[in-house]
């Protein structure tokens, strides 16, 4: 009974947390359409989340694309299917690896930094100071970051997809003996609009989730350095899990329903 009670308590706590995050998300969305709007904060968040994430996204994508080409070539050789490298790299990067890896990189880089920054603001009373300066923390801190992630992560995913495919192309044409023109033609011919739509949709959902979770954990952090540390760690764990779960659901919605 004790074990069952403990499991029950954990499940209830998890459901309560999901409910609180959901309410937080609804509040954030309600503030998106209500003035005042903080354009400078949005621009700063776009720079931080979008532009400054490009190097890590680019490097992740190019190495993944290259490794994918090598794996498909080596695996395909077992049943004489080496020629499918362009098609599988394209579909693998655009449908799955591009959005998921960009999402996880955003969780590592952006969610953690948002959670740590806002949690530090909370423990140093900067959030209270915002309120006393007639500034709603949800509007000033959460909305710009969530909007910036919603806008920029699909763009990052598109860039990651292209660079990942290029990584596969570079390895395939440089070391595996593929013809460059044929590789590009096979890639372009094989991809369908739905692949790209699913990729960008996943990017938008993952970006929204990553920024929102960072803000939620920051706003609800405990006191002191331990509170900031726990908020940062918890935000990255939660964002990574939500991104992977959402990826499963979205893949099902796009490709099996």
């Amino acid at each position, binding site marked *: 009974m004790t074990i069952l009670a403990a499991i029950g308590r954990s499940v209830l706590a998890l459901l309560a947390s999901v409910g609180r995050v959901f309410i937080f998300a609804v509040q954030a969305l309600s503030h998106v359409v209500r003035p005042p709007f903080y354009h400078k904060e949005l621009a700063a968040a776009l720079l931080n989340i979008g532009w400054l994430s490009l190097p890590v996204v680019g490097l992740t994508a190019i190495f993944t694309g290259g490794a994918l080409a090598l794996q498909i070539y080596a695996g395909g050789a077992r049943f004489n299917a080496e020629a499918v490298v362009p098609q599988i790299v394209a579909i693998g990067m655009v449908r799955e690896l591009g959005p998921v890896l960009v999402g996880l990189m955003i969780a590592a880089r952006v969610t953690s930094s948002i959670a740590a920054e806002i949690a530090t603001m909370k423990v140093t009373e900067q959030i*209270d100071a915002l309120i006393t300066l007639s500034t709603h923390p949800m509007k000033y801190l959460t909305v710009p970051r969530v909007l910036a992630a919603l806008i920029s992560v699909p763009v990052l995913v598109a860039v990651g997809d292209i660079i990942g495919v290029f990584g596969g192309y570079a390895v395939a044409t440089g070391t595996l003996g593929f013809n460059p023109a044929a590789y590009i033609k096979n890639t372009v011919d094989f991809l369908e609009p739905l692949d790209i739509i699913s990729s960008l949709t996943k990017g938008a959902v993952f970006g929204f989730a990553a920024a929102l979770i960072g803000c939620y954990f920051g706003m609800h952090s405990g006191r002191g350095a331990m509170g900031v540390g726990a908020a940062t760690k918890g935000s990255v764990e939660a964002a990574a899990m939500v991104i992977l779960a959402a990826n499963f659901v979205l893949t099902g919605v796009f490709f099996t329903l």
Partner: protein
Amino acid sequence: MIKMEGVTKSFGSNHVLKGLDLEIARGTSMVIIGGSGTGKSIALKCILGLVTPDAGRITVAGGTSDRDAFLARFGMLFQGGALFDSLPVWQNVAFRLLRGSLAKPRAEAREIAIHKLRRVGLGADVADRFPSELSGGMQKRVGLARAIAADPEIIFFDEPTTGLDPIMAGVINALIREIVTEMGATAMTITHDMTSVRAIADNVAMLHDGVIQWSGPVADIDHSGNAHLDQFIHGRAEGPIQPLR
């Protein structure tokens, strides 16, 4: 100006405020004293609307507290400064003047910020620095400049001298007294520092065990006849207030 009637607040089984009654007249400086954990900050946060009381009534300028209207004419100096470390000093000071209903052109806001920095004894060269580049005393002054930037009618000071050396504490106390007198603002200060009390206060309220144990003019604190206040201001270990050991 500010009136708290029968305000109670509990956190689980911890009854922090047990029917707090307090009145601060317009244009006066009230200092609330009391030991750590007696609910001074909670009382302040109840007035600000950051904490919702379980019961009781808080009125500001005769009307039940409308937080937005109240905050528009309010300034606060936080214990740790609470400066925004992503913004330079002048933008911290002019924060309210750069956005919202009190927004002014950027150049004008900067000019006002520099004027307010001068008012608290800081030069224009500080304006473009970031808070992390300033000493604790300078951060406190910037916090004070931010609190008075929009010429508020009501100013709260939360432990204004905590963490400062005695000389800097004296400077801050003198600044607060000058500013409050000059602006005619209503001030509420929370502190443990009896030097601050004597420098800043018109009236003093002693909070202990969730209620105001004594309140009156600062001139009366040395002969109040109140055992709680006597023990506190003389820092005695023996008395009605049981220190945690």
